[in-house]
């Protein structure tokens, strides 16, 4: 089965520490992503991307492969109904680097099944999520990215 890779880069006027917590702090992610990312963020732990509140259902789940605060986080990524099908899991790598007075966030989503539903979802999702994260960190206000969709 062919696999595909997508790379997204965004420059944010913020610090690597703030970008790191911007990705992992559930209170914060809810504001711009409409989901809470929940885990203890240790290598080998499970993580979940939950709709709404703590008790919400997971829309995405996986394992933390590597966590090196605040510069590198690697997660596996799967829809809940594919949790047991390891070969369907994809991988997301976040790399966070200070560049001059900005922070560069690179998201590499690979090992994705080409032309799958998941591929369609993430290719429309990541640009919106990252643009919204940037706006929230820079202005204090999230974009209403999901309104009317």
């Amino acid at each position: 089965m062919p696999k595909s890779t997508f790379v997204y880069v965004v420059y944010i006027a913020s610090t690597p520490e703030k970008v790191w917590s911007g990705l992992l702090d559930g209170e914060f992610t809810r504001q711009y992503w409409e989901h809470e990312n929940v885990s203890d963020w240790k290598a080998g732990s499970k993580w979940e991307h939950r709709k709404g509140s703590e008790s919400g259902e997971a829309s995405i789940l996986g394992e933390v492969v590597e966590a090196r605060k605040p510069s590198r986080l690697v997660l596996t990524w799967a829809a809940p109904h594919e949790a047991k099908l390891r070969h369907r899991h994809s991988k997301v790598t976040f790399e966070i680097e200070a560049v001059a007075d900005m922070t560069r966030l690179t998201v590499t989503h690979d090992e994705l099944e080409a032309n799958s539903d998941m591929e369609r979802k993430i290719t429309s999702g990541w640009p919106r999520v990252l643009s919204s994260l940037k706006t929230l960190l820079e202005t204090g206000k999230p974009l209403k990215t999901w309104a009317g969709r």
Partner: protein
Amino acid sequence: MKDSDLVFKALADPGRRKLLDVLNAGDGLTLSDLRAHLDMTRQGVTQHLAVLEAAGLVATLRRGRHKLHFLNPVPLQEIYDRWIARFERSRVRALRDLKQRLEGARNA
């Protein structure tokens, strides 16, 4: 120059827009892959890629000996959020649908 100026400038050239289309169709292309899709010299492709990279529209990844080029749509999303979403998205959509219907009818 502001980031959005670089994006608009990068998009102003039809060759660069074609390059983005090619990158959108197949992820992770080398310079040689890109050349195979485009009627451009190696130097031309290299120059256009430099402008697109400076605008943030192309991201690169090293895989072994190869440098792979990817379309990075995040700057386009920022322009969308700034220039389209904010201005009456529903009317823009209605006009686009009307245009497609009328053009579809003409081509039928």
